[in-house]
């Protein structure tokens, strides 16, 4: 076989990349081993020899990974499509601002993003953690080494099959695929990248993944501290320095999750902010266990109770992060998730990653169980730590429930492995299933997060305080019930469970306000937990308002009663352009749409009326449809939302006429139309079924909306009057033809209301435009200012242009070109025409100009410099007014409508504000810990 010598490839990028991937892997392994020996030797200083080797190896690893990331960016920036990863994620039309998103769109890129954060966090810990450096960084190095295997891209033959270890992001396209195109040495000039999914081309894709992956990566810090504690059998020392990190980790992971749900709500057509999708659950669960861990961490620091639980929560949180990676990347979720997955064939590697840290963490925990200190005396019932501990158990319970249900596809896979005939199980109605149980979690967490803060550690001074405490709880409960009652005037709570949830939500809100006012006396530095708990209560109320009370304002007039539940029918509605629809107190009008780049942007007007039909509020929203990169079909619909303080109005187009949805369907519809040919003269009529069609006039400047005068030499439009006998309505529309050289474009007149489409037959052109060979030119000699008259058109020679431009003229070196500008006036038309006289290589030539509106063909044929006389040859189209040939189609599907979903989300800002406050509380607490430590 001949080796092909390829043209234009930049092989050095891949060669360096490959070398660095192996270096990074080996360095991480060396770093792990060195740190391991350092810890085992119990020298316990950061200056021993093995620690130094470990640290330097970690630096080598870090800089190698950073360089690989840089190289891939370089290849993406320069559109090196010889690389498979570049080819898959970049295209020539990809705006530069999305190059970051394109980088982490793929699995390899997102693994590198994750490693990037591990490396940064590792560097910080090397600097800050003192004598804990070796055990902490050991965990980092091991995690990095295992993650690095995901990029190795080694294929080991194993009997008949090949074992694939990792996927190298610097693999060449021609190594990944076998295609005939690679027989061509110059294949690079023939290909262009596939580019990014248009759905992901927005700023959310730029900010959400790095935040979420920082959240993922940061959970290794509490894990590493816990692991170091177990390893060195030192169960107290690490609690202090780790706390700030755990708070930070919970804050940033929560922020990442929130960004994802905000993205889903404002930019994707999910129509909500949380759907209990496996992908969402997978990252929520580790956040819940981490928050549970934070609470027992506080107990352990302040009282010495619960150290065993701290270990458990921190170890399991990181393992759950790894498990979420397995769920989302292995393809095991299959058809249970709405998110798109790409399989990399790394299932076993991911299982090893999860299994390794699970076994190592939990195994060590069990092994050290006895030596972890645990006070023998029970904490009293009225001690803060007891209720915090209960709270963390409830969070754990929530995590187990969510994981249990989300993992159904995993059990199915395992059981099918042992019993191939096993039929998998699945949750029937996902959202109600989760809501039903998590409702009670929210109730208990709300109660505990407000009650426990008033209690004191060890129950100090309980006897003196208990009456005051009981009274306070009663007052708060009473106030919550009153507030809930008031709330029912705004939102419906439907069942007693939701009433309880609402009361406890208010309980958390006011109890935490009261705590800040009466106990902390506005000392904001101590208020971080109160802020977070207040936020939680607010979020609970926000969920009740926006989730339970969301209301569709798009309701469907064409309903098959009894067939479906009301909820389904009312979700979507068909809107016809310009025809207002009255629904739920709103007039909804589809006003217009415009095509901007790849987006078709709609203007949907909402008018809210009161009983006396006065307009109370008017808004226009612009949801859009994004076409695929090749414009062949709609790739995605994006919503648009009007945000009020107390509610949101959310709109999303969910469907378009088939002709607008894809080119293929448009062609199919076009082909299925039956045009009937009819001949009719101007002002004569033709009857087709219920319609009377009457051509009114012919003009040469078509006004048909689709007709683009910039691309056509000339065009012809026929104004038609179509009358619907049945409804006695008539419409005036224009059907047009455009000419571009020898190409003819037809722009039929369409009346969507009647389902009528009328096109002009080609034969019409011959009647109005005379071919060149049949034109009868006459010679006219003119001077500046003189004029002649042809068929009622007064033509005068206005001026000359030394640098003339003309569609059919391309300037060449040495040309002498003169343009003669003629003014034409008459028969109600004013036009100008510039004809060219050119001397090229001593040969005179002329370039004709054609005035479509007047039908005049004008050639500038000679110049007599002595007499200042100029000769023109002019001819005119024979414009008889014969019968027009029309093609008429009826029963045409209309193209002027869309299907809309419009939903009101009351109180959704309470949800956002509440959840943001939770994160703010975590960040404040974290910041206070870090600033205290220094």
């Amino acid at each position: 076989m001949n080796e092909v010598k390829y043209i234009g490839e930049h092989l050095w990028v891949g060669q360096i990349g490959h070398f660095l991937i192996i270096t990074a892997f080996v360095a991480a392994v060396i770093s792990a081993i060195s740190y391991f020996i350092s810890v085992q030797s119990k020298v316990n200083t950061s200056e021993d020899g093995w620690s130094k080797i470990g640290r330097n190896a970690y630096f080598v690893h870090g800089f190698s990974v950073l360089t690989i990331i840089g190289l891939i960016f370089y290849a993406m920036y320069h559109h090196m499509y010889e690389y498979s990863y570049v080819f898959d994620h970049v295209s020539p039309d990809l705006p530069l601002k999305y190059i970051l998103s394109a980088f982490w769109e793929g699995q390899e890129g997102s693994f590198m993003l994750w490693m990037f954060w591990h490396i940064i966090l590792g560097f910080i810990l090397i600097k800050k953690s003192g004598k804990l450096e070796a055990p902490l960084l050991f965990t980092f190095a091991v995690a990095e080494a295992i993650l690095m295997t995901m990029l190795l891209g080694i294929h080991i033959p194993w009997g008949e099959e090949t074992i694939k270890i990792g996927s190298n992001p610097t693999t060449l396209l021609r190594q990944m695929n076998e295609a005939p195109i690679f027989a061509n040495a110059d294949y690079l000039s023939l290909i262009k990248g596939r580019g990014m999914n248009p759905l992901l081309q927005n700023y959310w894709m730029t900010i959400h993944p790095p935040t979420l992956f920082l959240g993922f990566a940061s959970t290794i810090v509490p894990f590493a501290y816990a692991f170091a504690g177990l390893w060195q059998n030192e169960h107290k020392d690490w609690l202090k320095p780790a706390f700030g990190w755990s708070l930070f980790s919970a804050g940033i992971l929560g922020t990442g999750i929130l960004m994802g749900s905000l993205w889903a709500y404002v930019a994707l057509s999910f129509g909500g902010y949380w759907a209990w999708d496996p992908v969402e659950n997978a990252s929520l669960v580790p956040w819940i266990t981490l928050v549970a861990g934070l609470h027992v961490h506080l107990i352990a620091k302040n009282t010495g109770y619960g150290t065993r639980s701290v270990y458990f929560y921190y170890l399991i949180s990181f393992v759950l992060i790894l498990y979420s990676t397995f769920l989302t990347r292995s393809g095991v979720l299959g058809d249970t998730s709405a998110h798109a997955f790409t399989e990399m064939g790394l299932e076993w590697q991911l299982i090893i990653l999860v299994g390794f840290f699970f076994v190592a963490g939990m195994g060590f925990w069990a092994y050290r169980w006895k030596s972890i200190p645990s006070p023998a005396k029970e904490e009293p019932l009225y001690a803060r730590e007891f209720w915090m501990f209960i709270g963390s158990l409830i969070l754990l319970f929530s995590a187990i429930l969510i994981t249990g249900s989300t993992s159904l596809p995993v059990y199915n896979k395992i059981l099918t492995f042992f019993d191939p005939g096993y039929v998998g199980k699945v949750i029937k109605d996902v959202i109600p299933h989760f809501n039903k149980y998590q409702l009670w979690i929210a109730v208990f967490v709300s109660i505990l997060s407000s009650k426990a803060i008033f209690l004191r550690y060890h129950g100090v001074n309980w006897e003196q305080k208990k009456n005051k405490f009981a009274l306070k709880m009663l007052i708060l409960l009473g106030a919550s019930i009153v507030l809930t009652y008031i709330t029912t005037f705004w939102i419906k709570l439907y069942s007693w469970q939701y009433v309880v949830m609402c009361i406890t939500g208010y309980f958390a809100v006011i109890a935490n306000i009261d705590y800040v006012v009466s106990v902390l006396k506005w000392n904001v530095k101590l208020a971080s937990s109160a802020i977070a708990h207040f936020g939680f209560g607010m979020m609970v109320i926000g969920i009740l308002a926006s989730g339970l009370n969301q209301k569709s304002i798009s309701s469907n007039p064409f309903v098959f009663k009894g067939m479906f539940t009301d909820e389904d029918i009312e979700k979507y509605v068909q809107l016809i352009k310009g025809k207002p629809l009255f629904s739920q107190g709103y007039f909804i009008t589809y006003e217009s749409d415009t095509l901007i780049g790849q987006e078709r942007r709609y203007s949907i007007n909402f008018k809210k009326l009161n009983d006396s039909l006065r307009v109370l509020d008017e808004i226009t929203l612009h949801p859009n449809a994004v076409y695929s990169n090749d414009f062949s079909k709609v790739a995605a619909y994006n919503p648009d939302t009007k945000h009020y303080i107390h509610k949101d109005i959310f709109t999303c187009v969910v469907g378009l006429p088939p002709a607008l949805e894809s080119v293929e369907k448009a062609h199919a519809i076009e082909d299925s139309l039956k045009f009937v040919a009819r001949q009719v003269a101007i002002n004569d009529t033709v009857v087709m079924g219920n319609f009377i069609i009457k051509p009114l006039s012919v003009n040469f400047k078509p006004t048909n909306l689709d007709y683009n005068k910039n691309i056509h030499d000339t065009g012809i439009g026929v104004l038609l009057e179509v009358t619907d006998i049945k409804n006695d309505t008539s419409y005036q529309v224009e059907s047009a033809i455009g000419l571009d050289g020898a190409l003819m474009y037809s722009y039929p007149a369409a009346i969507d209301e009647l389902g009528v489409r009328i096109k002009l037959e080609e034969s019409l052109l011959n009647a109005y435009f005379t071919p060149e060979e049949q034109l009868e030119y006459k010679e006219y000699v003119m001077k500046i200012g003189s004029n002649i008259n042809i068929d009622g058109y007064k033509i005068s020679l206005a001026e000359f242009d030394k640098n003339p431009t003309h569609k059919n003229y391309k300037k060449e070196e040495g040309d002498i070109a003169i343009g003669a500008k003629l003014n034409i006036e008459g028969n109600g038309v004013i036009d100008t025409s510039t004809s060219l006289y050119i001397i090229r290589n001593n040969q005179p030539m002329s370039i004709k100009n054609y005035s479509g509106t007047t039908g005049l063909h004008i050639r500038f044929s000679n110049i007599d410099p002595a007499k200042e006389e100029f000769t023109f040859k002019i001819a005119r189209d024979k414009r008889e007014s014969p019968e027009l040939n029309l093609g008429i189609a009826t029963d045409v599907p209309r193209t002027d409508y869309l299907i809309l979903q419009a939903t009101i989300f009351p109180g959704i800002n309470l949800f956002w504000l509440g959840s943001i406050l939770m994160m703010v509380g975590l960040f404040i607490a974290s910041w206070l810990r870090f600033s205290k430590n220094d």
Partner: protein
Amino acid sequence: MNRNIIISFILIAVGVLVFSSVSKDVSTYASFKDAENGERVKIVGQLSKDKPMEYDPQNKPNEFSFFMKDDKGVETKVVLSKPKPQDFEMSEQIVVTGVLSDGVFEANEILMKCPSKYKDEEIAIRNQEG
């Protein structure tokens, strides 16, 4: 210690209760035959591409009907109470949730597994002009 035992006992009791009630939310992927008892079920199958699909967005934007063959090979008409999903014709596998009544499966939820739009495409060849 006593209290911890009580707490764990309560937790286990609640856990058992919850998990036994969870089993009601769970079903196996059913076939059209299983749906004959009128229960709400999830069915996996494939689109019958030779049978007609009906969608009239102009008059019934929330009703889309098609024929689907389940894994046992039984073919039934499905009426979905939603607009026709994008790229429906390209689906490799369909999961519908709903109720069988009078021989028609009335579904209000659908999930499709499509060949990934961006991964399985042929390597794009640039136009001669471009």
